[in-house]
């Protein structure tokens, strides 16, 4: 018998378009870039604040411009998607066992959502006070 295994080519840049699950994965990964850019924007805001009221005013004008608001909204959607997908996989990365039994994944995911809600509430209260 003659052996001549055939290796099928894989698109180095297009592979992720071949299946919906790969596209969802790429969206999850790219969400980090938007969140990173948003953090960069906040750091620039701090820098502008240190340069005086006029500099900060112009920064605020840029952030509140239609382009700035659009960027904020897109980042918000990606941040929610990022958190959603991350919370969903926490039972895989951090499975818990109590008294010899596996803790149901829904409880682990729920605990993360609860932690997120409590943290958000505390930050809101802290900002309000």
């Amino acid at each position, binding site marked *: 018998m003659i052996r*001549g295994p055939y*290796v099928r080519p894989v698109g180095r840049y297009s592979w992720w378009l*071949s299946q919906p*699950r*790969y596209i969802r*994965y790429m969206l999850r990964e790219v969400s980090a870039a938007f969140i990173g850019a948003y953090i960069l924007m906040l750091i620039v805001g701090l820098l502008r604040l240190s340069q005086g009221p006029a500099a900060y005013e112009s920064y605020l004008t840029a952030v509140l411009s239609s382009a700035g608001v659009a960027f904020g909204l897109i980042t918000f959607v990606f941040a929610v998607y990022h958190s959603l997908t991350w919370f969903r996989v926490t039972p895989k990365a*951090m499975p818990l066992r109590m008294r010899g039994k596996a803790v149901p994944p829904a409880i682990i995911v729920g605990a993360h959502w609860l932690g997120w809600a409590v943290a958000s509430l505390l930050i809101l209260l802290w900002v309000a006070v």
Partner: protein
Amino acid sequence: MRETIHQLEVLRYDPETDTAPHFQTYAVTCQEDWVVLDAINYVKENLDRTLSYRWSCHMAVCGSCGMVVNGEPVLSCHAFVRDYPEKIRVEPLANFPIERDLVVAIDDFVEKLTSVKPYIISAEERPVESGENLQSPEQLAVFKQYADCINCLLCYSACPQYALNDSFIGPAALALAHRYNLDSRDEGRSARADVVASNPGIWECSFVGACSEVCPKDVDPAAAIQQTKIASTVDYFMRFLMPWRKQ
């Protein structure tokens, strides 16, 4: 019993005559309770005896009949024809070289599986006189899920990381390494770490999670790999914090 006619598009490749694979279509009258493997067996027995493919148990245990059906890696004995449209496209598992028709060369996987030492390792040799190496049901439950792997390689077919990166150890082998690392009778974690905790091991995994989605046995290799990443990170920092601690 209800019968339906399906167009079975099968990827064919003969290393002796072909330079590249091509599709060949067979019209197959299928019974309602047929799985894709039954349709392929019908082709082999009645239409084309040259078709090559692997199968054995016909009950999702042996892991031989993995194929890509309409773009999704499945066990062909576990995929009912009635759940597919009229056209059913059958290809060999992706990410492996095609040996002939639906048969792929799995040498790379076997080599990688061997490299993670998928067996119980004891620090000292246990003489037969010492009796059974006992384990409680609770200790078994910790790793049972990862021991259900049947090496069908659907996870490798679904993994884009393995598709792009030849050196990646891959989902099933890493899940099996995790299975032995979690076993209360095993003391081989550090012996496996060279391969498992290396770059081509767990760190090449970017957690696409496709492996777990296609796994017919709910082994969840993606979970095994993420847990190994956490354990290996803890090991790394413990080496600095508590250098006297045994690995």
